[in-house]
């Protein structure tokens, strides 16, 4: 189609649009309300895990610090670091855990050196990509199962 023809068609089209009846103007006002910023939390890992022995080695107390403290998941990995059991999912604001060597959940553990992992978690879905670890020695003697900070 020749350019002149296209121009003529364009002009006619524009005229047709402009000449459409019923284009009565309407007063309007459309203000906008903007929100502030919604920011997702960043789940942080504990920087280090402190370990305190109990006198009779019935348990060890693990403690750490982190900010923001959104909650943590504490897991215990076997001696080969191939399998684990979740010891606890701690709520936001809690940054300590007592690992009881006699607790039923601990019987799963292998004897010997094992590793406690602590990861930041939130909302049941989010988890830190980083973690802190602490080794303990789990053993059995005349007084039963014992846990010692390694």
């Amino acid at each position: 189609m020749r350019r002149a023809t296209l121009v003529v068609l364009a002009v006619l089209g524009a005229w047709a649009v402009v000449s459409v009846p019923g284009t009565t103007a309407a007063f309007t006002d459309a203000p906008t309300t903007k929100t502030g910023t919604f920011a997702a939390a960043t789940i942080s890992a504990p920087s280090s895990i402190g370990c305190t022995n109990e006198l009779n080695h019935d348990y060890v107390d693990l403690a750490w610090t982190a900010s923001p403290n959104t909650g943590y998941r504490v897991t215990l990995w076997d001696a080969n670091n191939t399998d684990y059991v979740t010891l606890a999912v701690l709520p936001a604001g809690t940054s300590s855990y007592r690992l009881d060597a006699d607790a039923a959940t601990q019987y799963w553990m292998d004897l010997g050196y094992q590793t406690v992992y602590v990861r930041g978690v939130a909302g049941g879905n989010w988890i830190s990509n980083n973690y802190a670890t602490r080794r303990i020695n789990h053993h059995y003697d005349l007084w039963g199962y014992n846990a010692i900070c390694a």
Partner: protein
Amino acid sequence: MSRHAAPRRRAPRRAPRRSGRSTTPFTVVALVGLAVFLLMPTGGTFAFWSDEGTMRSADFSAGSVDVSLDGNLVGTAANGGTWTQNSFALAAMLPGESKAVSFAVGNAGTTGLTYAIRGSATGALAPALRFSVYVGGTATNTGTAASGNRTGTCAGTALAQNFTLGGVENEVVSQRRTIGAGASETVCVIAKLDSAADNSLQGTTGTASFVLDGRQVGV
């Protein structure tokens, strides 16, 4: 010897000569025509009484459509403006946490208006934000960041719930609501981070905008 001139005799006064002919009709017509002719160029020299009256209208004033947001953006000069609600925000959001805010949508114009609501959102967190819009109720926010359980709720009637917003404006409340001149109603909005938000969204941010699309009644 002086000369005495003989007195000159005054010539007898001659009586005015009368033509003896009477004025002809032709002459009269000519004179009248001449008079008319002379008068014509100076026209309007004959006064005439007259009167006229003027009908003057009262003032015609254009109506105005003016949507106010919590008392902001009042006046047609501010039409189409933007009001940022800095309090409608939440830091360090966790999955499932939410925030609510309520504000008055007012008609500061002189005519009734109707409005719909469009919305858009930007930022990496935007796809995980769920919005809800209510009317006729106020916002309540509970919980703490330390507990990770901040929750915003709205009273009133739900107009739209749990919708997401993208970068392009979408109509979120299409059923137009009517507000009379000088009146207002409360709109409440909730922004919630999806409980199933992906772990990769940590540390991301998002913002949203809502357009209150007001028009004069009758259209």
